[in-house]
């Protein structure tokens, strides 16, 4: 008698209540390659775990964003949000597509300049801009977005010292229904603080107000908030024009567009919940419709989109190290990548895909990282057929924040590579070595 193929024996209880978790499991199509390059080849070349970026997806997302807005507004500018991912390779692909740079610190400003970005093609945000940063910015014509009155005064002093009259923007904090207001940044619009800021700026007569900036939040799933905020910005811009004769060069609606990740508490899967670029564009441009006139008289619309462009372009290849059975019946899987490299595991339910067809019934599984820390949970409540040590898993939509926010903790940080549009691949960041680590350290001589 021919023997049937062997699978680990599994018994899974059916859950009642909020839908059967197992019944909502999408057919797990394995991902054997990324943009035509096999996962195994990538691991063999660069090791595991491994961050992989797809140039094709990056360019597609960037163009889709630009196109969605270009058909609705005559002058659109994308400014790449450096904090989302400031690896040189990623930044240069986007700058090649025409994106400016959006930076929030002197370090990011320097990095942008190091990437060859023109100083006057940079938007400089953030609450922390020391004098050295402001000087550098004003010298080069970088557009500074003022965050608070102290910064305004500091900016005026620096400008005077340099003998320049730079164009600046002010950041507004705007309340929009359905989202928690980020009141710690910018000048509040509704309370009149923004008007005060404008009057103060005009009275100081050292800076030119050329733009308005507003960043509503992060991972906003409802475009309606943008419609409301854009409407308020447009009304404010009109007020500035009629009362002070100011014609703004740009209106910056910041970032915050959601990517195709699902938040942990999110009920709907990403395919259903994440709005398209068109929906965001509709909302923003509809909100701005109070601004009328020929293209020359309209301000440029600036987008600081980060996550929505790069998240989908990033993958994390990880290898199963061990499996265990937890007392509550769930299976535990230990991976070689943990929350030390996948910071976004804290708030997303990342898609996890095997690289080969996994036979068997999905069981409730927990993915752990390699750290000896209880909090190192990469993915909870994941229905997964049985995996063995050595199996590879691909975590998807990890392109945003992970390679900037990751920690070197317990393990050395892995390599980051990019797969090009013609099947070529290469390093974006070398894997860390112990030498590199210890080169930072010094031991005082009395030890």
């Amino acid at each position, binding site marked *: 008698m021919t023997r049937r193929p062997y699978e680990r024996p599994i018994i899974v209880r059916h859950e009642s209540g909020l839908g059967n978790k197992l019944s909502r499991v999408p057919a797990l199509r394995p991902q054997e390659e990324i943009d035509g390059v096999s996962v195994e080849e990538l691991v063999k070349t660069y090791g595991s775990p491994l961050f992989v970026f797809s140039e094709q997806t990056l360019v*597609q997302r960037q*163009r*889709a964003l630009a*196109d969605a*807005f*270009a*058909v*609705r*507004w*005559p*002058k659109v500018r994308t400014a790449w949000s450096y904090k989302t991912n400031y690896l040189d390779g990623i930044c240069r692909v986007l*700058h*090649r*597509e*025409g994106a400016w740079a959006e930076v929030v610190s002197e370090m990011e400003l320097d990095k942008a300049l190091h990437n060859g970005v*023109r100083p*006057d093609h940079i938007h400089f945000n953030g609450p922390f801009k020391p004098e050295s940063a402001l000087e550098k910015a004003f010298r080069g*014509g970088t557009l500074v977005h003022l965050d608070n009155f102290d910064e305004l005064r500091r900016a005026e002093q620096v400008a005077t010292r340099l003998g320049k009259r730079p164009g600046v923007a002010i950041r507004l904090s705007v309340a929009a229904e359905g989202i928690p207001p980020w009141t710690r940044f910018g000048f509040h619009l509704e309370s009149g603080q923004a008007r005060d800021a404008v009057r103060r700026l005009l009275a100081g007569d050292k800076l030119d107000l050329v733009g308005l900036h507003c960043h509503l939040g992060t991972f906003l799933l409802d475009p309606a908030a943008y419609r409301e905020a854009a409407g308020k910005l447009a009304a404010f811009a009109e007020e500035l024009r009629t009362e002070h004769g100011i014609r703004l060069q740009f209106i910056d609606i910041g970032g915050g567009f959601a990517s195709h990740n699902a938040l942990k508490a999110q009920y709907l899967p990403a395919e259903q919940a994440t709005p*398209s670029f*068109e929906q965001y564009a*509709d909302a923003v*441009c509809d909100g701005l*419709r109070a601004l*009328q*006139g*020929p*293209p*020359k008289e309209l301000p440029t619309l600036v987008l600081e989109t980060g996550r929505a462009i790069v998240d989908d372009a990033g993958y994390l290849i990880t290898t199963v190290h061990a499996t265990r059975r937890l007392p509550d019946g769930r299976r535990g899987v230990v991976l070689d990548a943990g929350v030390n490299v996948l910071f976004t595991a804290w708030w997303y339910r990342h898609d996890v895909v095997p690289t080969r067809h996994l036979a068997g019934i999905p069981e409730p599984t927990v993915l752990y990282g390699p750290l000896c820390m209880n909090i190192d949970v990469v993915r909870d409540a994941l229905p997964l057929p049985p995996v063995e040590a050595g199996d590879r898993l691909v975590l998807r939509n990890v392109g945003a924040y992970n390679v900037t926010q990751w920690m070197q903790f317990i393990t050395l940080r892995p390599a980051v590579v990019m797969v090009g549009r013609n099947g070529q691949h290469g390093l974006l960041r070398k894997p860390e070595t112990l030498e590199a680590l210890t080169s930072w350290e010094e031991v005082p001589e009395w030890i």
Partner: protein
Amino acid sequence: MDLIRSWSQILFSRDLVVGGLLLVASLLDPWVGLHGLLAALVARAVAAALGLAPLVVGEGLFGYNAVLFGLGVGAMLPHGTWSEALLFAGSALTVVLTAALRDNGLRTGLPTLSAPFLIALWLVWSASPELVQPVPGPDRGLPEPVALGLRALGALLFVPRVEAGALVLLALLRWSRQGTVLGAAGVLAAWAVIEAVPVPLDPSQATLLALNLGLVSVALGGVWFVPSWASLALGAGAAGLTALVSLGAAPVAARLGLPLAIAPFHVGVWAVLLAMRQRAEDRSPRSVDFLPGTPEENLQYYRTRLARFGARYDVRFRAPVRGTWVVTQGRGDGPTHRNEWEHALDLEVADADGRLARDEGTTAEQHLCWHLPVVACADGVVAKVIDGVPDNPLGQVDLDDNWGNVVVLWHAPGLHSLVAHLSPRTIAVVEGQRVKTGEVLGLCGSSGRSPRPHLHWQLQATPQVGAPTLPLELHDVVDAAKGEVRGTWTPTTDDRLRNLVPGEVDLGLPPGTEATFEEDGRPVVIRSEIDPWGRRVLVCGDGRTYHGLHDDLFVVYDTLAPPGSPLHVLHAALARLPLEDGERSPTWSDHLPPRTLVPPWLRPLQDAVAPFVPLEGLHVRYRRVPGDRAVIEGRSDRERGGVPVLTTRAVLAPGVGLIEASQTLRGVTRTLRRRVP
């Protein structure tokens, strides 16, 4: 200087040599010439007293009527204090009349010519007891037609003598060779008439006839119509008409004692110009609807404008949409663009894979162009709005309100544009409202005969909805598939198009400022101005470059400058410049006028042949080299010995503007570099 220009303007010129020759010619009869000078001085004083635009005065445009009047007074009025008084009064009057008629002329488009002079002369006639017609001088052994012609030329200045005429002929040649030829043709015609007419004409009548016919021939053959076979024919016809007027009016004038002078010329030109206005289509001969220059200049300008801009319309049309759209039904295509509605475009939005809708594409809202803004394709006035027609569900059409929601814009007499199938209650303009290019008219929808959301766009002659279409053109729009800015383009099905995005590229030459450049160490000052007619000009010495500055494009219209002028280098390097930012800049091409590119010794030959032989300009391809500063490189298609005949280069630095312009023409390089303080 402007005194001499008053003389030049008698021959439509501002050239000092022309004016000088005419002045000398008039002084051959010192009394006449001096009166001319006196009149010119009076006119200048009056113009200054009235506070007339110094720029216009400087062109001599307020002086030439006075000069003619002065010459006339000197020649025809009896010597005496009363005549001198009339001289002063009349000269002043010509200035006033010129100013009054110029304004009218600008509005109606009819040139003032020397009407003020004629009016002043006739008024003076009534105030003066007698007029003496100047006696034509002897033939001096020249063949009759030649002598007639020279005397006629002299008669222009009221010195009907062959010697004066010879100087005027020199002036005429200096002004325009084609013009001289045209004038000679007119004189020949006059001579033919004189020989043919059974009634013998007295010499002064014959001379005047020749003068009038000669002037008509020049004016209609090359100044107000682009020189061609057709304009020559028109000139001949008009000469005939003028001869009729001349001969017919002569006895009447004689009985009244009125000097006819060049009145028949005026009648002839005005009548023909007005009549030609009534034509259905302005071609063959093509009227000069731009600033008239010499016939050579008119021809060249028209030819290159034809090549660069397309002769069809003066209005420049941009795409009526934002971003990149695709043509889904072009000219003559599909079920609806046929017969009288042949020239129309259906536009939609496609994604990177060519799909027109997202997701399943089963509803109108899923179509990518749904509710996208539709904008004005050119400046204009809203002529008609139809709103309230509901959008159709996908797949259904509304045949009752065929066109759906519509906005018709008036752009110029006989030129309207129409956008149809807009979504109801999204139209943002009202009838009578002025709109500028790029302003939002409404949102794209699916009303009327529209099974799925799309935009229908057409040009038509009347504001009637459903009027037959006019041939359609887009100007300075990007052919997105090729990444090229097309000067004049009629897109067809599957073409993708978008407007240029107004950017921050700037030449740094705002009107009212000056910039100093350097060529071979010598300073070159270029001044940017707006002339009294509202045109943008770059002035360098005696040369001018007329240009247009739109939000998205800088374009040179014409350069009128001596051959060695640095403005020609600027023109070649910057003929047309999209002002769009960005690394992915489209390429573009342009035609450069042939006259300036031909070596000087070849020019007279080219001028003579040009009206009858198609001579295209030089086709140059331009591209923007990516980088910090904007570097624009141009390369002519035509090559010689494997090397392009012309290469150009312009460099613009952020914050400053144009800092370098250079051209290499047949191996010779000229470079202008800006002196930055």
